[in-house]
């Protein structure tokens, strides 16, 4: 099966007090259509940097990233932005909705950033209904609970029917029940064919994924290396 997202020997080097260090150190990764990969790791292990590289928001120092068979290297900002908009559904960490737009407007926003055919508003309403928050369409983000808002952000990530959904700590700051609801929603999406790449701290949520990788000191390893070497 063709890889939706492929990272080939990717490195990202930074300077820390004039000493070079690798936030991402020779990482290779392939995510195929229908996959559900969880990446876990401690703070500072390089998870977010890897996610930013995978989402085309940060260019690697070396190595290459292919999204849907297209190499992201050397593309100008507008092309990369369009690719991000069309092919990646991104769920940032925290309550990352635009505070001045309603929930419906937040969900439809990626659809409006570039020209798309079809009924964006209708699709947004369907997504809100699907996530059980259609009654909050005209509310503002500050009026929603953490769980409701996170569901809205997932709906927003799906509005352009992306090739892959990338979520950064989607259950952070949520209570257990809300976290489970969110992960169940992701699992359901995956069962419908949506490809998922999640970064998480929450080891209890790993059971919802198909694969797990651990990030440690910039290296990516298959399996869960955080709980006594046991895979979930």
């Amino acid at each position, binding site marked *: 099966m063709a890889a939706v997202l492929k990272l080939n020997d990717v490195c990202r080097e930074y300077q820390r007090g004039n000493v070079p260090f690798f936030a991402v150190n020779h990482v290779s990764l392939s995510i195929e259509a229908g996959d559900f990969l969880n990446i876990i790791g401690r703070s500072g292990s390089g998870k977010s940097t890897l996610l930013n590289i995978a989402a085309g*928001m940060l260019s690697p120092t070396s190595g290459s990233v292919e999204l849907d068979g297209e190499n992201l290297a050397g593309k100008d900002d507008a092309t990369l*932005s369009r690719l991000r908009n069309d092919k990646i559904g991104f769920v940032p960490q925290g309550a990352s909705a*635009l505070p001045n737009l309603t929930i419906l*407007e937040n969900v439809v926003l990626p659809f409006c950033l570039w020209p798309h055919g079809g009924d964006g508003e209708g699709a947004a309403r369907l997504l809100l209904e699907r996530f059980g928050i259609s009654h909050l369409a005209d509310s503002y983000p500050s009026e929603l609970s953490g769980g409701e808002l996170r569901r809205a952000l997932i709906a927003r990530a799906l509005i352009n029917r992306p090739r892959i959904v990338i979520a950064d700590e989607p259950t952070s700051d949520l209570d257990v029940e809300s976290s489970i609801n969110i992960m169940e929603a992701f699992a359901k999406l995956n069962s419908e064919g949506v490809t998922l790449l999640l970064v998480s701290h929450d080891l209890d949520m790993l059971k919802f994924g198909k694969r797990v990788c651990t990030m440690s000191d910039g290296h990516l390893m298959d399996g869960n290396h955080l709980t006594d070497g046991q895979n979930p």
Partner: protein
Amino acid sequence: MLGLSTFGIARRNLQRRPWRSFFLIMAILLFSFFLFAGSVLSLSLSRGAESTANRLGADIMLVPEGFDPHVDSILLSGKPSNFYLPANAMENVRNLEADIGIAQMSPQTFLATLSASCCSYPVQLVGLDYDTDFIVKPWMENTLGRRLLDGEIIVGYHVSGWPGETIKFFGKNLTVAGRLEQTGMGFDAMVFMNRATIAMLSREAERIMGRPLTNDGSLTSVIMLKLRPGYDSVAAAVELNRQLNSKGIYALFSKKFVNSIGASLTAVSWIIRGGLFLLWILAVLIVALIFALTMAERRGELGVLRALGASRGKLLRLCLTEAFLISGYGAVLGIMLGGASVMVGSPMIKDALRLPSLLPSFTGLSLLALGSAGAAVLTGVFAAAFSAVRASRVDVHEMMRGA
């Protein structure tokens, strides 16, 4: 559709941050208000001075000694005054005609009314000697197209009355033969007539008011002189003063009068320009500062937009559109407020500055309004541009740290 264009998002951002928008709009509003009102004031004064220079066709004015401030009042504001030269003033001046280089001389008579059917305020009546006048007559005949007859008047721009109507002065009905265009000077509040008509009114005035107009019965308030080419008006005025001061006659040279208006006008114009420049700096600083703070505060929000697929260009357009909208609102409100203030405050400012003033035409005002609005919008966009460009250049992952 929800209308989530760049314009739509920018508009929502402004609506949802009313206080921030209010302060930004106020900064631009103040700038556009003062730019428009200041430009109108400056141009009005300039036009007023030009008009004064054009209307004062005389090189020298002879007035009763001690009455020169009254002449200023009459010419600038039309404030009515009664004052008269000695009876033999014309003969005295005529004796010096050759020495001084006088080409033309014409007497004018001023008569102040306390009330009239036309106006709720006193009006200055001016009698012209039609045979010798070289100042107002060409201008009046241009308006009227014929000689002014006895019992007829021409009214200034601010005096009520239309051709064919009659106005009663000192119990006498006079027919309005024409109206003069606006001058921005005292002429606007004057009523012109020939010497025979004002002589008749003066007799009535004397009867009604119960006191003689002058001790010697003369009806000459000022004498306007035009010099032959090559004669210096300053030197002529000095010579006239030397010879006539003892006879109660004082010579004013018009250029000095116009020059003093010009000097005052230059000072006022520089004050207006300086104030506008300071205000421009202030507006740029306020808008730039508030925008910089806003961009820093909204770093995460802008990062989310980038993560969702907004390009740097789109982000820049969004920020500049917000600046454009704010500046547009501020500019339009400022111009409207400025227009209203100009209409209401112009006469007061004219009185306070004691300078002739002539409002620009409607087209001129419209062009000034458009120019002021454009300058205000450019100022707002320019002030916000630095923060907007900076915000759009930050890497997405850096921005996302603030989300």
